[in-house]
């Protein structure tokens, strides 16, 4: 019997997840515990380990959205006969989706209408994520209860019990690990090119996406489905995501690194999308590579005035545990309920590397000394002639939305009431539609 690989529940209020990429090809083998695929949820991205050793078959297409607890692939034992796919992939919304066509599982129609609530998702069956894993997670009832209460993904925990069983001890140790304040980190600079991730599929002029400060490429997930008809190229800023932790002395140095990465892509034309600090970088890039830029979309961009919420940036950089990170994350959005404890814990997990935090702290110090934006792109905004738009939430508590009003008349403004610093998360549907119309 092949072992079913399921979409794990990694977030408290997650109903489904998107298979972002497979680490191995169909027909290749994987050892139990090795990274098998990446998933994205509304709020986070995560690597999922193989639940068993085996050969990958019937893998869900990249981009497919699968309800939690449902199969995304099957692992066959060496020599085991591979027949029909044991069961069709479950689609979000209930109906089973056929295997081969990635677009089927997540059609454009599933993007929320502007101004409407996101489509209700099927209620997750909470026990599935834990119980439907006979070959996967072995955990005691107490460990499962703790994990459930604390919003910890059981699949991520090493089990120290018999046959790798996860015990309450393991969950507590894990939580303790998250809670242990690390020593004041000294920044150990690294070298190397920036990390670039690309979507599969899409045609026409690619979209180059540059995330904001203290974020990473996974932050684009909520709007990607809306623009996936174009090839998506995500750049991780230095000291962010999977990029090396470079020493960045000032904004020019930062732009230089990103420009090198952009040049390395050897694109004839690209749409640029940037958020916050990434917006400033995109603007600077457009200013120096204007002939290659088809359009520029800036979401709550930095660089258009001196004010910035330095306290929040500092707080996010310095937080060593979910409890201290959560409040600052909540300042990023207008509707604080978007940032659950589980979300904060996952975000902290992504920031667990002390050197990453140290690199970002050093960068914050270089770019925003004394809580001031030490770089000014207002002139660049005046110069550029490519089609450009600025999207901003009018409840942004990090960068003042009124900075947008300095844009020249040819730059379109999209200002959202009741939205904070993360429009691409808070009103993903609307942002997706606006971008799609431009790309």
């Amino acid at each position: 019997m092949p072992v079913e690989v399921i979409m794990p529940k990694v977030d408290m209020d997650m109903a489904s997840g998107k298979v972002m990429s497979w680490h191995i090809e169909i027909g290749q083998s994987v050892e139990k515990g090795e990274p098998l695929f990446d998933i994205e949820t509304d709020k986070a991205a995560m690597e999922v380990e193989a639940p068993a050793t085996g050969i990958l078959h019937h893998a869900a297409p990249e981009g497919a959205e699968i309800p939690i607890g449902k199969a995304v692939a099957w692992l066959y034992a060496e020599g085991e006969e591979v027949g029909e796919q044991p069961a069709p992939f479950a689609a979000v919304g209930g109906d089973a989706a056929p295997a081969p066509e990635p677009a089927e599982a997540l059609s454009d129609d599933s993007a929320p209408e502007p101004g409407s609530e996101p489509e209700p998702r099927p209620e997750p069956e909470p026990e599935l994520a834990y119980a439907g894993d006979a070959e996967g997670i072995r955990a005691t009832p107490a460990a499962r209860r703790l994990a459930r209460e604390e919003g910890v993904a059981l699949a991520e925990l090493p089990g120290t019990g018999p046959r790798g069983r996860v015990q309450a001890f393991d969950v507590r140790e894990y939580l303790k690990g998250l809670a242990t304040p690390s020593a004041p980190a000294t920044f150990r600079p690294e070298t190397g090119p920036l990390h670039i991730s690309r979507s599969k599929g899409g045609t026409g002029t690619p979209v180059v996406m540059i995330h904001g400060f203290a974020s990473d490429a996974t932050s684009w997930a909520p709007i990607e489905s809306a623009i996936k008809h174009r090839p998506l190229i995500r750049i991780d800023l230095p000291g962010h995501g999977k990029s090396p932790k470079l020493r960045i002395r000032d904004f020019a140095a930062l732009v230089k690194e990103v420009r090198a990465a952009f040049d390395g892509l050897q694109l004839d034309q690209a749409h640029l999308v940037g958020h916050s600090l990434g917006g400033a970088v995109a603007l600077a890039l457009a200013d120096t590579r204007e002939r290659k830029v088809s359009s520029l979309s800036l979401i709550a961009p930095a660089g258009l005035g001196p004010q910035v919420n330095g306290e929040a940036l500092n707080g996010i950089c310095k937080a060593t545990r979910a409890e201290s990170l959560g409040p600052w994350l909540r300042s990023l959005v207008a509707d604080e309920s978007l940032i659950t404890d589980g979300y904060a814990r996952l975000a902290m997990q992504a920031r667990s590397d002390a050197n990453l935090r140290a690199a970002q702290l050093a960068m914050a110090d270089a770019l925003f000394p004394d809580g001031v934006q030490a770089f000014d792109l207002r002139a660049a905004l005046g110069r550029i002639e490519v089609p450009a738009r600025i999207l901003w939430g009018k409840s942004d508590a990090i960068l003042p939305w009124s900075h947008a009003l300095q844009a020249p008349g040819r730059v379109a403004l999209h200002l959202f009431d009741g939205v904070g610093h993360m429009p691409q998360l808070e009103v993903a549907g609307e942002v997706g539609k606006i971008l799609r119309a431009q790309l």
Partner: protein
Amino acid sequence: MNAHSKPDLRELSYAEAIREAMDIALTNDPSVILMGEDIGVYGGAFQVTGDLVDKHGTDRVMDTPISELGGAGVAVGAALTGLKPIFEFQFSDFAALAMEQIVNQAAKVRYMLGGSVSVPLVMRFPAGSGTGAAAQHSQSIEAWLGHVPGLKVVQPSTPEDAKGLLLAALEDPDPVMIFEHKILYKMKGHVPEGHYTTPIGKAAIRRDGKDVSIVATSLMVHKAMQAAEQLEADGIDAEVIDLRTVRPMDRDTVLSSVRKTGRMICVYEGVKTLGVGAEISAMVAESDAFDYLDAPIIRLGGAECPIPYNPELEKAAVPQMPDILAAARDVVKGRV
């Protein structure tokens, strides 16, 4: 052994405590009678009734013919017609001979006559192994009777409870089966003076602990206590629960203990399969305490064979202290 024993308090043996309870009952309540084979002049197979016949006379301390079925039938009839008999079996194994009266009459009459009558009958069963009395005189059959609605089944493990549960049984309007462990008869412990009762259906926490709940019955409570003392040296803090009553079982005490410790071992002398421990385990598995379990539940019960005559094999056929020790270590250290 007894948590309550203190040198300055009055101590009695388990058998003496039972005798005292019967003496008090005979003295206070003219409707109480004792019945059984050789309980009169001979003083009972294990000398529990002792000289009570001298004090209370043969009208109230009655030797019955050597027919358990007949004796039990008379006892049920006496209970139905206003007396409160205490019926002693020489060995609990002989309950098999009286099953019709116990299971089909005593347990059911109240129900079958719409609650118009009750059977205030107490039966005492010398039980358990360890005396070299072999297969037909060494069993622990409390689970047989615990399976019958209409009966209450208790297993005192201390002299104090032996007296208190007997006096409580006499106050109960329905049949109460008391399983007394033969090995405990000589065990001494503090026994309060006068009349008191130990509640039926209420377990006792003999030792507080946080790492593992050892739920034990009868003689096994003492083995569990010895194991718990040794476990302390390993840094394992075991909680020992004396179940005391098999039916009705004290759900609350067991579940709250498991919620605290997350681990459970059931220790009982009856045959492991389909025994008391299976019921305790299922009770936990079906409850909200399930979510607190951090290790498999372990049952230590009697071997799947008749109790052997050979003393070494007899010992091997029921849980011993080292078995409890090993199980507790395994379960706490995550080896099972």
